[in-house]
C-alpha cells in the first residue's frame, strides 16, 4: 500500500477526476481514526506508546482462581462467601468483581472463579499470596492473572530451536574518552530538557553533544564509570549511551520505579518502587529488582512491605534509606548487602543468594558501610542496657565473616563512619555524652586498615566542645579536613595520617580560623579543596591548596546549592538548582578558582559530570608524568595560545560584522527619515524642530527683587 507515488502521477489522476489540485488543502485531510494506510509511523521512540498502559478497566487487575470445590447451587453462596472472605483480605474486590461460573446443565460450579480488583498491584499480590493456598486437602488453589492466560495459550506445542541473530558489532561506548581535546562531559536537566555538553574551557562555553526534551520523567543518573546515562520512566528505567549520539541501549521494566542505583562496576542496576497499600492499615509494599545492565535480565527480585526494608536498628524509625543494597568488594561487584533487624544480609552476585545461605547476625546493628575497595564491612552497634553494654564498631571480612578488628566505645550518642577512597583509612566520628549527659562532644577513632593488626588511634580536637560541621578524606590521599566550631564562623583544620617525620601518627597540618564554610569538596585528584559556604552562607567559595597550605583564590556563587568537581580534578561546577526560584544556573571554575563561564538556566534541576573509569596507568607511570609535567605541558600551552588567538580573532570578526550590520540598518533608516522630513515639519506646523535642529544656548541674567526693606538708621548728629 505504501508504494511511492510521484507527483506527476498524482496530477494525472487528479486531472482524470477533474479535480483542481491547487484548491485542495492537503493539511485538511484527516485519516480515519485507527487507519494508517499501511504507512508505519516512525516515531517509535516514544516510550509511552511502546508499553501497554495500565487501564483501570483492563484485565490486569483480574485473577483466576482454580481448583475450587465443585458445588451444587445450595452450597454456592457458602463457597462464594468463603472465597470472598479470603480475597477481600488482600485488596478491595470491585463491585460485582467476583464471578463464579456455573455449568448450565448440571447446575454445579465449574471449580474456578474470576476476581477483579481495583488495581493490578492488588491482583499481583493476591496471586502471590494465595497461589498454593490449601482450602482443604484436595483443594489447593492455583491462582493466575487473567492476562497471563493469553501468554500461556500461545506456547506452541512443539519445541522450535531459537533463532540465532547474526552478530552485529556494538558501538564504542567509551568513545567520549577519546576526545582529542581531552574534555569532559556533563549532563544538565533544566525545565523539560536534558542536555549533555562538553565542557570546553578553552572556548569558555559548553559545547552541545545531545539534547532531548522529556528524556526522563524524574531524574537522570550516570553510571559510576560513565558508560551509561540512566533515565527513569513510569514503566521502568532505561540506559543510554553510544559513540556520538545517545541511543537507548537497554530498558528495564519496573512499573512506577522511584529510585535506581548502579553497582560500582556498573554491571548491575537496582530499581526500587513502593506502592500505596490498598488497605490504609497496611504499610507500603516495596519492590526491588536487580538487573544485569548489559542483558537486561532480572537477576533477583525482592518484594515485601516497607518495614522489612526500613533501616536497621532495634525498632528504629521506619522509612527506607537509599540505597537499600550497598555494594562491596570494589569494582568487581562481587557482593551486596542490606541491613535488617539484628542482621546484615550479604549476597554474592555469582548466584545472587546469601553467602553461606544465612545472614550475618548482629544484635541491634544500627548501620554498616563497605570499604570502597575491599570486601570489608564496618558496622556500628549502639550502646545498650543503659550503658552496661558498650557501643561497638567492628570490621568484618567477607565472605569469611570473621571480625578483623573491634573497638568498644563508652557513653556514645552517635557514630558515623568515613572511609578513605582507597580503603586505607577509616575514620569513625564518635559523639559522646559529657559526664552530666546534658551535652555531647566529638572525637575521632582512626583505623589504619592496611597496616598489621589495624592500629587504632584516637584524635580529639583542641577544643573538645566544638561541633563538627563536616569531615572529608582526601581522595587517594592521607589527609583529611574537618570543619569544627559553633556559631557562624567555624574553623577548618587539616590533618595528615603520615607526615615526613611522623609516619605512624596523625598530626595536624594547620587550622584556618573563622571561615564562612559549611561544606568540604576535595578534588578527586587530591591536593586541592574547595571550602564552601552553601545555603546560609550565600555561596562563599575558597579554593585552597593543601600541599602549600595557602588559599589560591576566593569566589562567590551567590545562593549556590551544589558543588561538583569534574572527574579529573581540573574544573569545579557550582550550581543553583531550583530549590530557589531565582539565580538558577551553573558556573564553571578552574581548579584554582578562576571563574571560566556562567550559564543561567531557569528551572535548573541537575548538574552531573560524566564520571570516568579509573586510569590504566600504573602508579609509577603516573608519578613519572607528574615529574615531567613541564615537558608535556608545553604542547598544551601552545595549543591554548593558538586557541585564544583564534578566539579573539573570531570575536573581533563577529563584532565587526554586528557593527556593520547595525550601521547598514541605521543608514537605511536615516534615508527614510530624511524623506519624511517635510511631512514631519508639517505636523509640527512649520516649526523646523527635528531632533537635528540646532538651538542656541543663551545666557540670560535675571535680577529678582526678593524683598525690599526700609530701615531707619539712627544717625548721631552730635558727632564731632
Amino acid at each position, binding site marked *: 500500500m505504501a508504494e511511492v507515488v510521484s507527483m506527476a502521477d498524482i496530477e494525472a489522476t487528479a486531472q482524470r477526476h477533474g479535480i483542481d489540485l491547487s484548491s485542495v488543502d492537503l493539511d485538511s485531510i484527516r485519516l480515519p481514526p485507527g487507519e494508517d494506510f499501511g504507512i508505519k509511523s516512525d516515531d517509535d521512540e516514544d516510550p509511552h506508546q511502546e508499553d501497554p498502559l495500565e487501564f483501570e478497566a483492563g484485565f490486569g487487575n483480574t485473577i483466576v482462581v482454580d481448583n475450587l470445590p465443585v458445588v451444587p447451587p445450595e452450597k454456592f453462596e457458602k463457597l462464594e462467601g468463603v472465597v470472598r472472605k479470603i480475597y477481600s483480605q488482600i485488596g478491595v474486590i470491585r463491585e460485582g468483581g467476583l464471578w463464579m461460573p456455573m455449568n448450565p446443565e448440571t447446575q454445579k460450579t465449574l471449580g474456578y472463579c474470576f476476581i477483579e480488583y481495583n488495581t493490578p498491584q492488588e491482583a499481583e499480590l493476591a496471586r502471590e499470596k494465595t497461589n498454593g493456598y490449601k482450602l482443604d486437602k484436595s483443594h489447593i488453589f492455583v491462582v493466575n492473572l487473567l492476562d497471563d492466560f493469553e501468554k500461556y495459550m500461545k506456547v506452541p506445542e512443539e519445541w522450535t530451536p531459537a533463532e540465532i541473530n547474526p552478530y552485529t558489532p556494538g558501538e564504542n561506548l567509551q568513545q567520549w574518552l577519546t576526545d582529542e581535546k581531552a574534555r569532559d562531559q556533563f549532563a544538565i536537566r533544566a525545565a523539560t530538557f536534558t542536555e549533555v555538553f562538553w565542557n570546553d574551557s578553552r572556548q569558555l562555553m559548553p559545547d552541545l553533544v545531545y539534547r532531548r526534551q522529556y528524556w526522563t520523567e524524574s531524574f537522570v543518573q550516570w553510571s559510576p564509570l560513565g558508560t551509561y546515562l540512566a533515565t527513569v520512566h513510569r514503566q521502568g528505567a532505561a540506559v543510554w549511551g553510544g559513540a556520538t549520539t545517545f541511543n537507548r541501549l537497554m530498558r528495564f521494566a519496573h512499573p512506577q520505579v522511584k529510585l535506581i542505583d548502579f553497582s560500582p562496576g556498573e554491571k548491575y542496576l537496582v530499581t526500587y518502587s513502593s506502592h500505596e497499600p490498598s488497605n490504609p492499615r497496611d504499610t507500603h509494599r516495596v519492590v526491588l529488582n536487580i538487573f544485569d545492565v548489559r542483558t537486561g535480565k532480572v537477576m533477583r527480585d525482592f518484594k515485601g512491605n516497607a518495614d522489612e526494608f526500613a533501616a536497621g536498628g532495634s525498632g528504629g524509625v521506619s522509612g527506607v534509606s537509599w540505597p537499600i543494597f550497598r555494594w562491596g568488594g570494589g569494582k568487581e561487584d562481587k557482593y551486596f548487602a542490606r541491613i535488617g533487624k539484628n542482621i546484615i544480609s550479604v549476597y554474592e552476585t555469582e548466584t545472587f543468594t546469601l553467602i553461606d545461605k544465612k545472614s550475618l547476625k548482629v544484635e541491634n546493628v544500627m548501620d554498616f558501610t563497605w570499604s570502597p575497595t575491599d570486601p570489608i564491612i564496618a558496622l556500628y552497634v549502639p550502646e545498650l542496657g543503659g550503658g552496661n553494654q558498650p557501643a561497638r564498631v567492628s570490621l568484618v571480612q567477607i565472605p569469611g565473616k570473621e571480625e578483623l578488628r573491634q573497638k568498644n566505645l563508652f557513653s556514645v550518642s552517635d557514630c558515623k563512619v568515613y572511609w578513605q577512597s582507597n580503603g586505607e583509612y577509616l575514620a569513625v566520628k564518635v559523639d559522646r555524652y559529657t559526664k552530666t549527659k546534658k551535652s555531647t562532644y566529638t572525637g575521632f577513632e582512626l583505623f589504619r586498615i592496611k597496616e598489621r593488626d589495624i592500629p587504632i588511634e584516637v584524635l580529639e580536637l583542641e577544643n573538645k566542645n566544638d561541633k563538627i560541621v563536616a569531615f572529608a578524606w582526601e581522595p587517594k590521599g592521607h589527609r583529611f579536613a574537618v570543619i569544627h566550631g559553633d556559631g557562624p564562623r567555624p574553623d577548618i583544620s587539616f590533618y595528615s595520617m603520615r607526615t615526613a617525620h611522623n609516619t605512624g601518627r596523625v598530626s595536624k597540618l594547620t587550622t584556618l580560623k573563622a571561615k564562612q564554610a559549611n561544606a568540604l569538596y576535595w578534588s578527586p585528584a587530591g591536593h586541592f579543596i574547595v571550602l564552601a559556604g552553601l545555603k546560609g552562607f550565600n555561596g562563599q567559595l575558597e579554593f585552597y591548596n593543601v600541599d602549600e597550605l595557602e588559599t589560591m583564590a576566593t569566589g562567590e556563587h*551567590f*545562593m549556590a546549592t551544589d558543588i561538583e568537581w569534574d572527574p579529573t580534578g581540573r574544573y569545579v561546577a557550582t550550581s543553583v538548582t531550583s530549590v530557589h*526560584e*531565582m539565580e538558577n*544556573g551553573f558556573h564553571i571554575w578552574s581548579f584554582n578558582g578562576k571563574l571560566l563561564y556562567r550559564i543561567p538556566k531557569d528551572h535548573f534541576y541537575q548538574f552531573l559530570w560524566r564520571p570516568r573509569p579509573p586510569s590504566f596507568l600504573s602508579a609509577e607511570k603516573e608519578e613519572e608524568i607528574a615529574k615531567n609535567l613541564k615537558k608535556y605541558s608545553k604542547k598544551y600551552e601552545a595549543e591554548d595560545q593558538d586557541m585564544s588567538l583564534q578566539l579573539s580573532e573570531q570575536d573581533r570578526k563577529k563584532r565587526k560584522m554586528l557593527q556593520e550590520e*547595525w550601521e547598514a540598518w541605521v543608514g537605511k*533608516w536615516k534615508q527614510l527619515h530624511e524623506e519624511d522630513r517635510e511631512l514631519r515639519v508639517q*505636523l509640527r506646523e512649520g516649526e523646523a524642530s527635528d531632533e537635528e535642529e540646532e538651538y542656541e544656548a543663551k545666557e540670560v541674567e535675571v535680577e529678582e527683587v526678593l524683598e525690599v526693606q526700609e530701615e531707619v538708621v539712627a544717625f548721631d548728629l552730635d558727632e564731632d
Partner: protein
Amino acid sequence: MRPILMKGHERPLTFLKYNREGDLLFSCAKDHTPTVWFADNGERLGTYRGHNGAVWCCDVSHDSGLLITGSADQSVKLWNVQTGAQLYTFNFGSPARAVDFSVGDKLAVITTDPFMGLPSTIQVKQIARDPSEQTSESVLTIKGPQGRINRAVWGPLNKTIISAGEDAVVRIWDSETGQLLKESDKETGHQKTVTSLSKSADGSHFLTGSLDKSAKLWDIRTLTLIKTYVTERPVNACAISPLLDHVVMGGGQEASHVTTTDRRAGKFEAKFFHKILQEEIGGVKGHFGPINALAFNPDGRSFSSGGEDGYVRLHHFDPEYFNIKM
C-alpha cells in the same frame, strides 16, 4: 558620581519622563501626585494635584507646556506644566494605563485597562491648542488585545500606533483606520507580559521589556526583531541611551516574592547592555526594591530610575562611562 536620591513619593514609582530639553524630570507613582523635578540637581519643583488614584504614565509636550497623565482613577488629565493648573479631564469607564503625545502634540493615544467586564482599549484623542476648546471625543477606539495594554506609543509620522501588554504580543496599528498592521511572532517574540516599551531618540527603533526576563529591540516600521538582551530578572523597565549604543533595563523579583535574606537576591540593579553586541556592560545598584521605571536624559549624560521602594535615583555618569571599550 554619587546618585541623587529624590524622596518625594510615598508609594512605588510607576513612570519617569524627561522633557525634550532634559532639564525637567516628571515622575509618576502609585501615590496620587505626579511630581516635576530639576533634572540636574534633583530639586523638587512642584506637584500636580488632582488625581484620585495611582498614576501610571505621563507625557510632556514638545514645548514643555502641556503635561498629560493617566491614572487608575479612570481619568486622564491635561496640566499646565508651569503653573500646575488642571486644564482638562478625560473620563473613562476603567483605569487609564498609558498616554503618549503624537509628533506635533495634536493627538494623544491613551490605553485603558479591562475593568468590570469592559475590554481594554486604545483610544486616540484630539488635543486642542486652546484648552477651552478641548473635547472628550475619541477620534479612534481600538479593541482587541486581551488583558492590559501596558504601553502604547506613536510610530513615525503618527501613521501607526505601537502597543504591547499582558498578552506578550507587540502590535502595530494604523492610526487612521485602527486596522492591525503587524504583530510580533509567537516564536521570536516575548513569552510573558510586556511591561515597558521605549523608543529610541530618533524614533527608528524601540525596546520592549518583559517578565520573561528579556528585552527586545525592534524596527519601528517593519516590526523586525533586531536584538534580544537576556538577563536573569523579570524586566519592568527599559530605556535606550540617546548618546551611546547602550540600553538599560531594570526590574527584579516581584515585590511580593522579595526575600528578606539578602538584597542581592532580588536583582534590583539597573543593568546596562551594549545595544549592538548584546553584551552586558555593568550594573548600577542602589534600589532596595524592584525597579519600575527608567529614563535617559535626552543628552545621554544622566539617567534616572524609580523603584518599588518609592525613591527616584538620579545618576550622572562618571567620565569613565563614556570611555567604556567593548
